[in-house]
């Protein structure tokens, strides 16, 4: 039963093939077996899960028919869960229990889903390999010596290794799509403002967005039906109607125009290029048309991102001062000592690096040259995409430059680590929705294809992704359960 999609699980539960409790127990058992090796979970909420699963069975017996009622889910440990620890993968929040739940978490609760646990991540979602977690790196189930990607590596691995049928992730520069690509899962980053950020612990507020990581596009659509929507607690969430994301999944793609940005294929490794070209020809067979496009300013994405994201992070992370919650340095001599030691001892090196960069680019005398300039280029990147979407329905390219790299390979070299997000970052800067879906393998390692759509066109992304998954079975491949 662990291999079923959400839709299949929903049907099986309705048909009483098994109970919610049995289903939950099956996933908990898989976590017990696989998590010690893979390290995908920071906390497992076993008792709570069993309790709510039994309650779900009772509700189903009474005739409640919510489609996701009693189906388990796991949340990235950066989404606040009332009464359950939310660590953000950081020592500084090792003991933090939020007195509220993120709106996303609440919505899944209201949909009747069972929380299995909180997944591992790079500290405060800063990283592309999951090596920046205070709780240790997550392993890629396709190759234990390799990274699963980050920062939502725990969620992606939990789905890939079938420890959970679905999970949430968050994406600031590729943190849903890159690990999805490296673990053979489907990951959707919605339009900025489509999903509430309330209760999502902020890394870079103008870029952060939560989204689903699932086995299929159809499952992503089901989760989006729950997650998406306006929230009065988040001033940046957008108050426009939410479509039924499953509605257009089967729409024909004949005549649809796929834009291929030349810049995404320049210097691309031939093996990777081959995989992406195979996806393109599959779409062409379905009747889609391909068109070359220019995104002239997208080449500045990485530098622009590494000004804006650290700037916001330096301010967002100021609240971790040891005064009100979280880690506090022992026996501080005075206020200054309390601040400096709490933060020196509580944050890991990558977080510190970004706080330093962010503080620098916002400082008087540097603000105009860095932060303001970066904001201007961000506008240009946004305009590039807007211009492209005048003539294309979707933009397609690789999600990552390479398949999963080895643990330890890039952790000493931040620039090369930052470049692993080269294709995903522009999307966050523009606030657009994008999806990564399995596109086959290079050797034994999975790779992903990324598709980008115009604002609030998540339904189009899911339509494209679902159509591809109808004619291929990459997404059905599972890693071998080796230890």
């Amino acid at each position, binding site marked *: 039963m662990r291999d079923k999609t959400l839709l299949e699980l929903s049907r099986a539960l309705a048909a009483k093939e098994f109970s919610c409790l049995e289903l939950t127990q099956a996933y908990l058992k898989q976590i017990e077996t696989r998590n010690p090796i893979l390290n995908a979970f920071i906390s497992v909420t076993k008792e709570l899960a069993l309790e709510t699963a039994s309650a779900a069975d009772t509700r189903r017996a009474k005739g409640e028919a919510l489609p996701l009622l009693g189906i388990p889910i796991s949340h990235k440990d950066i*989404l*606040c869960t009332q009464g359950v620890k*939310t660590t*953000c993968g950081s020592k500084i*929040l090792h003991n*933090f229990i*939020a*007195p*509220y739940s*993120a709106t996303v978490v609440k919505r899944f609760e209201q949909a009747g889903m069972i929380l299995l646990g909180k997944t591992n991540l790079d500290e405060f979602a800063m990283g592309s390999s999951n090596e920046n977690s205070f709780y240790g790196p997550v392993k890629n189930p396709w190759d234990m010596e390799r990274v699963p990607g980050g920062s939502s590596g725990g969620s992606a691995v939990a789905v890939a290794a079938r420890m959970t049928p679905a999970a949430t992730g968050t994406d600031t520069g590729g943190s849903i799509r890159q690990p999805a690509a490296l673990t053979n899962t489907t990951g959707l980053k919605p339009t900025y403002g489509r999903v509430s*950020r*309330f*209760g*999502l*612990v*902020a890394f*870079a*507020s*103008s870029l952060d967005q939560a989204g689903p990581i699932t086995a299929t596009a159809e499952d992503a659509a089901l989760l989006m039906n729950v997650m998406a929507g306006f929230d*009065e*607690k*988040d*001033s*940046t969430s957008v108050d426009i109607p939410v479509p039924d994301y499953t509605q257009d999944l089967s729409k024909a793609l004949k005549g649809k125009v796929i834009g291929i940005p030349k810049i995404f294929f320049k210097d691309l490794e031939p093996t990777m290029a081959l995989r992406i070209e195979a996806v393109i020809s599959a779409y062409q067979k379905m009747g889609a048309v391909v068109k070359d496009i220019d995104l002239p300013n997208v080449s500045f994405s990485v530098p622009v991102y590494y000004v804006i994201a650290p*700037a*916001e992070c*330096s*301010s967002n992370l*100021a*609240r971790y*001062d040891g*005064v*009100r*919650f979280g880690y506090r340095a022992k026996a501080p001599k005075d*206020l200054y000592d309390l*601040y400096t030691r709490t933060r020196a001892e509580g944050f890991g090196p990558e977080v510190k690096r970004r706080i330093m960069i962010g*503080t620098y680019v*916002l*400082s*008087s005398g540097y*603000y105009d040259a860095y*932060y303001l300039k970066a904001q201007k280029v961000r506008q240009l990147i946004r305009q590039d995409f807007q211009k492209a979407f005048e003539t294309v329905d979707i933009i397609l390219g690789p999600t990552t430059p390479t398949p999963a790299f080895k643990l330890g390979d890039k952790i000493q070299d931040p620039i090369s680590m930052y470049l692993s997000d080269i294709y995903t970052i522009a999307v966050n800067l523009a606030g657009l929705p994008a999806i990564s879906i399995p596109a086959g393998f290079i050797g034994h390692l999975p790779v992903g294809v990324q598709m980008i759509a115009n604002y609030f066109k998540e339904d189009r992304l899911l339509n494209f992704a679902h159509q591809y998954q109808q004619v291929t079975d990459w997404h059905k491949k599972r890693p071998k359960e080796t230890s």
Partner: protein
Amino acid sequence: MNKWEPVIGLEVHVQLLTRSKLFSGASTQYGAAPNTQACAVDLGFPGVLPVLNQAAVRMAVKLGVAIGAEINKRSIFARKNYFYPDLPKGYQISQYEHPIVKGGFLEIMFEGESKRIGITRAHLEEDAGKSVHEDFHGSSGIDLNRAGTPLLEIVSEPDLRSAKEAVAYLKALHTLVRYLAICDGNMQEGSFRCDANVSIRREGDKKLGTRTEIKNVNSFRFVEKAIDYEIKRQSEVLESGGVVVQETRLYDSDQNETRPMRGKEEAHDYRYFPDPDLLPLELDEVFIQSVKTSLPELPGDRRKRFMSDYQLKFYDAEFLTESRELADFYEKAVLTAKGEAKLTANWIMGDLSAALNKSNVDITKSLVSPEALGDLVARIVDGTISGKIAKTVFEALWSGEGSVDEIIQKRNLKQVTEPSAIEAILDKVIQDNPKLWQSLKGGEEKLFGFFVGQVMKASRGRADPEQVNKLLKKRL
């Protein structure tokens, strides 16, 4: 050498009278137990987000239209970053480059002349919490009840030329914000706080001198004293060949002096940048117009109207329009007093004010209603009671003995005007003082007053003094 000319500008923090905070739903009520009115947003917990309070925006726009300012259709909230334990998020949300209110003026009357004081800007921002240094034996306590309370910071142009003029401006602003019902004006509780920027230059100079900022002045009197001290200090520095250092100074009311704040806390680089959690605040013309049409009559306009409608002198009109409640009280009283504007004004400024001061309450807590005061004035005017007896009636009113007419009746205070009744009293007084009566008749005119007084005394003050005079004269 020319004299020194002070150049003063004020920054006033006005606490807005909203029920909840600027970015959260927590209550803004003053005086609650520490940390009972701070929610997760005010505490800067991870993952929570600010949501702008519409009522605060409306109040800011109200002030803006009342001072004839430009309302920015698009204003931006920015983060002011610094570390302090009473600043939970590590940044204060404020407006920096694009404030909600830009340019305006306040007309003040100073030394009999009207003067326009320019207002550079007014912007919305959240207040910080409080650090409590007593009672914690070497540690500090933090009370975050105030954290997130909405403030409107109103910054004047450096148009003020003396400490007294600065106070006149501050009082006019204090009156205005209470008229607009956007602030309770309570200076002790910190609802209306003032920082003063002071510099001096040689009279006739165009260039401004180096300024200092005086913080923490929490009464009109201290504002005047602090500025005067600072003017004196700066002129002494310059006259002895020194230079004024640009710095922030704290006013110490016990010593009556200003002292520099420690340098370390000053060297802040606040790293302002637009708050990505809040979209730009967009206002449309319809909203601005709706605020404009909802404005009450403003204090300056009301003062002018009082002077023309009620023929009041400037001083009286200014006194009576000092607060909206007082002016409302006056107008209601005049109505009941059948238009006796001047006498009503005298009663409010005299006996009523004295009674309020004695009980240490403001006009809203007056134990005499405006209608009762109007009745009292009406009874004086129609001759039912004399002005002197009216004071007795007023005291009875204040202690709740009933309506004006009830008190007059119960206490038998009605003025005696009928000649026959007064004649009877007069007869008795003459009878009791035969010798003195003979002397008066013999031309000792200074005894006239004695007999009037005796009649008044015998009538317990009720006899109409005019009648007494008339009848006494007749007998002589």
